[in-house]
């Protein structure tokens, strides 16, 4: 069985400063990985390297064998567009979703009634939810989520946890960073970056 994502002997630099070395990781379908580490340790840099966005200063072997969904700190939302338009014309171009599917995705993240509102009129947490609605629409098997729990209320965190569990049950895989302690219990595996600091 090939892993959806494999990294061998990866070293990450930011600017001229080496951050991490000798990171090896194999993510198989059905797995949840949490990258654990203090602020500034290089969680986001590693996630960007795994996604393929960062190549400069990244050495080692990284292979992706599945379409991926990357959710960074910035939500990639246009404030002047409505929630529906933002998902319909999302730059990741991953969905051929019909308006009905987008409406039900927005309902899933508890934004029923906000479909036609400009995103600028939503709160930070609600904007985060619009971005998270992609987790319902996207066909990608491999999710790389950078601090997905940020700005979410308790109900939102529960929904996200539930959605991740659903996704891995459908043979998906998730790698995420978070400062929250193991939400997924026995399901998740931790990667402690403090062992890899240069």
């Amino acid at each position, binding site marked *: 069985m090939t892993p959806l994502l494999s990294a061998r002997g990866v070293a990450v630099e930011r600017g001229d400063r080496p951050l991490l070395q000798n990171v090896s990781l194999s993510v198989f379908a059905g797995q949840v990985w949490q990258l654990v580490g203090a602020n500034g340790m290089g969680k986001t840099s590693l996630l960007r390297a795994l996604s393929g966005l960062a190549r400069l200063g990244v050495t080692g072997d990284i292979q992706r064998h599945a379409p991926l969904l990357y959710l960074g700190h910035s939500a990639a939302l246009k404030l002047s567009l409505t929630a529906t338009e933002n998902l319909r014309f999302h730059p990741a*171009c991953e969905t051929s979703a019909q308006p009905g599917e987008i409406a039900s995705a927005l309902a899933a993240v508890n934004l029923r009634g906000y479909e036609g509102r400009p995103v600028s009129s939503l709160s930070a947490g609600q904007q985060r939810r619009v971005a998270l609605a992609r987790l319902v629409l996207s*066909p990608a098997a491999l999710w790389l989520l950078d601090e997905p729990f940020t700005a979410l209320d308790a109900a939102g965190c529960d929904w996200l946890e539930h959605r991740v569990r659903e996704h891995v049950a459908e043979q998906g895989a998730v790698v995420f960073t978070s400062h929250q302690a193991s939400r997924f219990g026995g399901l998740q595996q931790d990667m402690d970056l403090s062992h890899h600091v240069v």
Partner: protein
Amino acid sequence: MSSEGPSVSMFAAFSWQFVRHAKTLINSPADVANPLLFFFMVITLFPLGLGPDPERLAAMAPGILWVVALLASLMVSSKLFASDFEDGSLEQLALAPYPLPILALGEIAAHWLATGGLLSLVSPIFGIMLGLPTQGLATLMFSLLLGSICLTLIGAVGSALTVSIRRGGLLLSLLIIPLNVPVLIFGTAAVNEAVIGGNAVSWLALLGGLALGALALMPIAIGAALRVSLDN
């Protein structure tokens, strides 16, 4: 959970980027009006600076109009990818399962329509303001229409290269003004030729050739430049 490739056609992905950018432009009319206002203001200043002699103005009009069009294009091209870079849209664009040049071209097409395309269409009015002889007006419009395609694509390369740099405006100008020079020369020559009653078609054909060449090659450079800018 499907693991096949993209679920929509490449053209759909292109048109989504076009629509997304067009909608944001429609929602911010000030950004669309800015280059036009700039053009209008500069054009009204020239008769004040040069004196109201209509013949002198008419003789300089082709050059003035083209230089101001070039400056207007320079002014807007720095904004092209700026908001996409800030809000994370560029990251998503780069990770999309389609060629980045095609997706970026969708955005650029919307940007061009709202800036260069619109400016070309209203340019005869500016020509009349400067006393450009009427036989030059149609050529002015067509030369700007073709020329602005080149200017926009060249500007997009500069914008893609400098988008991650704070205050990259000056660097952007240094990078792209030399590349804009041939466009300026051919465009001005076309209008001058039409004004003296000659045949401007050969100049327009040269501009058209430049535009097609830019359409074929620049997106590749834009895609590569965007990836470099996203790399840390």
